[in-house]
């Protein structure tokens, strides 16, 4: 494989009809290497979530091409892990059964589920331990705090060992301390499992702290207007977010976002 693991080539995406629809993405280019952790930031409504839908094949692109692992995407990819701002756990399932859900759907696990059930459950327990939820197997979502639910959601996104992990503002609904704690959890998970991660966020500290590379998107219709490598050594400690060089990077990215927000106003 010469190209990246995930590649977007001049992707445009329009919701709805030809004339009346909303152009959410226009000329978006992106290249993510295997095992890389990237973050996408941008002004609100810039099409960050649309980008995720395009990359995972959940929504067909209007023009341009999306390639994942060397193949053009023309339908929903079947081995992607996803987590969103809402944990969307199933309230009738225990924590463990929520984490197990992908194994009941994704192949090859699905057909092996009955014969390797105990092994899979052990694996789910291992993941729960990794995110600090050991012993919560039998609790139900309503017995967990928001941060805990989000940890379970993360486990659910990881249980089938996806090569691609897509996170759409997964920590946005949490308070700052829980959020910072979960950054550590996510970094730990990533360093252990090494999936390719695409994190969409509007939190610049989150993006800079977690990602190898941060992309800035323009206002709608979205495209990449800036990219920046983040070269802090791993594992990163939370302290670095208060260092001046960290602050400078965040400030620089913020400037790009502010410019991006101003642009359509000028054009109009």
């Amino acid at each position, binding site marked *: 494989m010469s190209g990246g693991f995930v590649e977007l080539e001049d992707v445009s995406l329009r919701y709805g009809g030809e004339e009346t629809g909303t152009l959410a993405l226009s000329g978006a280019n992106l290249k993510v290497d295997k095992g890389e952790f990237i973050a996408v930031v941008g002004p609100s409504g810039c099409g960050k979530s649309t980008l995720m839908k395009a990359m995972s094949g959940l929504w067909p692109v209007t023009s341009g091409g999306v390639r994942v692992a060397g193949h053009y995407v023309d339908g*929903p990819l079947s081995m992607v892990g996803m987590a969103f701002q809402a944990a969307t756990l199933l309230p009738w399932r225990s924590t463990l059964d929520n984490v197990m859900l992908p194994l009941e*759907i994704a192949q090859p696990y699905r057909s092996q589920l009955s014969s390797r059930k105990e092994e899979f459950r052990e694996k789910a327990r291992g993941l729960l331990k990794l995110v600090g939820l050991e012993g919560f197997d039998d609790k139900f979502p309503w017995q967990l705090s928001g941060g805990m639910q989000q940890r379970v959601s993360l486990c659910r996104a990881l249980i089938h060992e996806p090569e691609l992990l897509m996170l759409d503002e997964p920590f946005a609904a949490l308070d700052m301390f829980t959020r910072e704690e979960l950054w550590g959890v996510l970094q730990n998970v990533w360093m252990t499992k090494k999936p390719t991660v695409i994190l969409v966020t509007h939190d610049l500290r989150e993006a800079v702290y977690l990602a190898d590379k941060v992309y800035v998107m323009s206002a709608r219709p979205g495209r990449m207007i800036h990219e920046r490598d983040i070269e802090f050594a791993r594992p990163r400690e939370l302290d670095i977010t208060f260092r001046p060089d960290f602050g400078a990077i965040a400030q620089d990215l913020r400037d790009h976002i502010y410019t991006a927000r101003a642009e359509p106003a000028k054009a109009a």
Partner: protein
Amino acid sequence: MADTTAQPQSSTPAASAAPQAGGLKLSQRQLERVMPWLVVFGLFAIWELTVRVFDFPQFILPAPSVIFEAMWQWRVPIIDNAAQTAFTTVIGFGIAIVFGLITGILIGSSSLVYNGFYPVLIGFNSIPKVAVVPILVIWFGIGTVPAIITAFLISFFPILVNVATGIATVEQELKDVLRALGASKRDIIIKVGIPRSLPYFFASLKIAITVAFVGSIIAETVASNKGIGHLMIQASSRFEVPLVFAGLLVTAIMGVAMYVVANFVERRMTGWATRSQGDPGSQT
């Protein structure tokens, strides 16, 4: 914070605040439990008193004491006819559950089916079922069958609508999570749609059972030779007004009993739904 389980229902913060009036100490919870009975007895007392004070003739408004007397006197035909009504209600309701579940799942699963059938169903639901009974009589003759069908026709709609709503309102994000795993539409419906619609389904049973009961009685009053509705029509044609009221009372008691059963089943089956967000079941 790990143990933030649902609070035990017996905790009553208001209990200590209750004023000690006249030595009669009832906790808020005890009061809530006896309140329905107090209201019922209060209503009967006012009714009895009104009838006696204004001396209403018995064929206009019989006093509760007279109604209870009629109930006792006619207990054999009442029980016999009530059993018939209960029978037609339960059969019609049973068919409505099967039909409502199947069509609800179909309609909730596909926007095409939804858009195609929903207007027709609404139109159908708007037809007063009492107007359908004569047609049923032409087709099936007077008797049990029209009552069962009326009970079915009147009660499948709430079930269908609720099941369809539960399935159609699965969060888009959850669908995305599953589709990104290669889930088919069928997978999503089975793993998420149907379990998710169960609280809606069980909530709808409470409504459906009561309207099924109404349907049975409507059919019995129009065209039947048995059932509590038939009994009331017979009694009123013979000016046995206390018996008519006894019939109404039995109807009300049976309605409450059926509701209680449906409510109990709902709580047993979908406790997770009432625990997760407040208690939607307790409002109705």
